[in-house]
């Protein structure tokens, strides 16, 4: 059984190798449609630790992989925005009314109205930082080491090739059976990726 931490990491696309340092099976499919059907088949077969790799996002792949809606980034962006807005308010209020109050014709030391532009700008700025930092955190990036990089063919994943990767950390993973499944659903080329850099076609 994968532990809770392993499952959480798998949701970020980070899988652990098994005792034999096998990282998983990497199968190549011919086109986005074939990859979509393959992902559906693999999920229906009960696999959970798998991922697809494509040069561009494929419409409908989230449903095919059973991933559901990605809400994390939005939540983090929201909290970033709230931080920026409240922070800008406190900054302007504290500097003008508390730390260095200037009495100008008896006017109030602080007013909301002229503070709005900076509150607005910092809301946007921090929400944007929240969205980007949240996206990177939820994706487990930056991730300089990835056993998939050992595969020569995998270089095409950022060009014009479409891959499905079943991780060895999945409960159901079995080199022979999983490979047979991938063969059955139309993989053009299958290779076994190991964490020590060796490869079996």
């Amino acid at each position, binding site marked *: 059984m994968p532990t809770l931490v392993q499952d959480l990491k798998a949701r970020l696309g980070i899988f652990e190798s098994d005792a034999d340092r096998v990282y998983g099976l990497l199968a190549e499919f011919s086109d986005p449609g074939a990859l979509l059907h393959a992902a559906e088949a693999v999920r229906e077969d009960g696999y959970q630790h798998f991922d697809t790799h494509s040069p561009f996002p494929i419409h409908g792949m989230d449903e095919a992989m059973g991933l559901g809606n990605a809400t994390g980034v939005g939540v983090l962006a929201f909290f970033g925005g709230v931080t920026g807005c409240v922070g800008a308010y406190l900054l302007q209020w504290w500097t003008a009314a508390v730390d260095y109050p200037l009495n100008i014709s008896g006017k109030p030391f602080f007013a909301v109205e002229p503070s709005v532009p900076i509150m607005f700008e910092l809301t*946007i700025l921090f929400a944007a930082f929240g969205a980007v930092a949240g996206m990177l955190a939820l994706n487990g990036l930056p991730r300089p080491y990835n056993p998939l990089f050992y595969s020569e063919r995998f270089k*095409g994943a950022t060009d014009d090739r479409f891959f499905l990767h079943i991780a060895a950390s999945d409960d159901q993973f079995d080199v022979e059976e999983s490979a047979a499944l991938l063969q059955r659903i139309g993989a053009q080329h299958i290779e076994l990726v190991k964490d020590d850099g060796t490869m079996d076609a």
Partner: protein
Amino acid sequence: METSKKLPADPSAPAPSPSGDGAPSRLVKGNLSFHDITEMVSRHAEKKAPLAWYVAFSVALSGTMLLLGLLAYVVWNGIGVWGNNQPVGWGWPIVNFVFWVGIGHAGTLISAILFLFRQHWRTAINRAAEAMTLFAVMCALIWPTFHVGRVWAIYWTLPIPNQMAMWPQFKSPLLWDVFAVSSYFLVSLVFWYVGLVPDLATLRDRAKNFWRQRILAFFSLGWTGSNRHWRNYEKAYLLLAGLATPLVLSVHSVVSFDFAVSVIPGWHTTIFPPYFVAGAIFSGFAMVVTLMVITREIYDLKNVITLDHLEKMNIIILVTGTIVGFAYITEFFMAWYSGVQYEQYAFINRAFGPYAWAYWIMMTCNLVTPQLFWFKTLRRSIPVMFVLSIFVNIGMWFERFVITITSLHRDFLPSSWGYFTATWVDIGTFVGSFGLFFTLFLLFLRFVPMVAMAEVKGVMPQADPHYHEHGGNGHAEGDGEPYIKPAEPALAEAHRGNGAEDTEAPST
């Protein structure tokens, strides 16, 4: 590729959209595969630059040197070496600042607003336009930074504790500007970088050289095109677009507050925020057209940045130019209707006073010449749009000149009237800022994928998962092994020879 670029324009060729719901006309011309896109875009960042690049770069770099030298001269002697004086304390530096910030707006508009409106044609130009935004904002930030006079004290504009134990004046529009423009720069930077990550990964996977591969690996963050990543990535990109949209509209509004919150006749008007934003988009799109016309020519990207893209941008120039012209006329009406003598004089003085020449250059270039884009043949003609887009930016620079200079040179008291003249340092630093802009833009063209490859691939018909159920596999011939095809005119001819029925991607 030029030979095949007119292929889909053939009316007898039906749109290759087998699922029936695709776009009626293709965004990418000439039956290209995914790999062709990678090849067409990446090779420019990998091979040696063409001679034209070196020529342009040396000219641009000389301009940058001129800018740096003259800024040192300004710091050494004080900003009096610019023409700024009483009564015109805001001379060319502020004109140039507003001009450059405005140019930047088109990039964000293309990348964010058109994204939200699902205008897929933006994918071909958004990368270059966003880069243009960043470089234009850098050029803009030079001016207020040096215009403060004591450039070493510029950090006083930020809320950093300093030796005076004082804080910035948050009620000042000039300080709002500091926050607006720097937030705008940072958000544009992360937006641009997030968009770049998948393309940098493409370059990384193509890299032959060890260090090149390492450096690209560092910047591409270990991107593998994983769907678990694309999922969050697309969300973040959508959110950034949603955040950048109000931001870009706010930035030029805040810039206009620099003028509108004052009590100078000709500045103190509520029309300024929308009018400045429309002007910014107008000038920015003109700059994008100028740059794209040259880029697609030199880098052979006519199949990706097509005439349709340029035509759409010209329509936006026509629309925003008309809005700007309408604003000019509205300003006049409001000055008359207000019944305020000083306001009325400010506008009569603009059109018929000592700076009438600048006013009529502005009117001609912004209101009159863009109207030529009503004619389809003119807005699809490369030479016409090139000249008109340059006219627009001349006009928009003069718009800021007219607003800044004419309002200041004659205000309430005739005893303090004066006439502003630019000095050679004004001219030199302004020319130098173009040098900096083009230096940065040329470096971008040389080292960064200039078209968003992942996004372009995503809007091609083969990217639809249902496309392939009708045959065709997204690859060109072969089993997906690397190959280089598009450069061979013979193959392009062969496609043409297949004629109108060749509507699908080349099949295996």
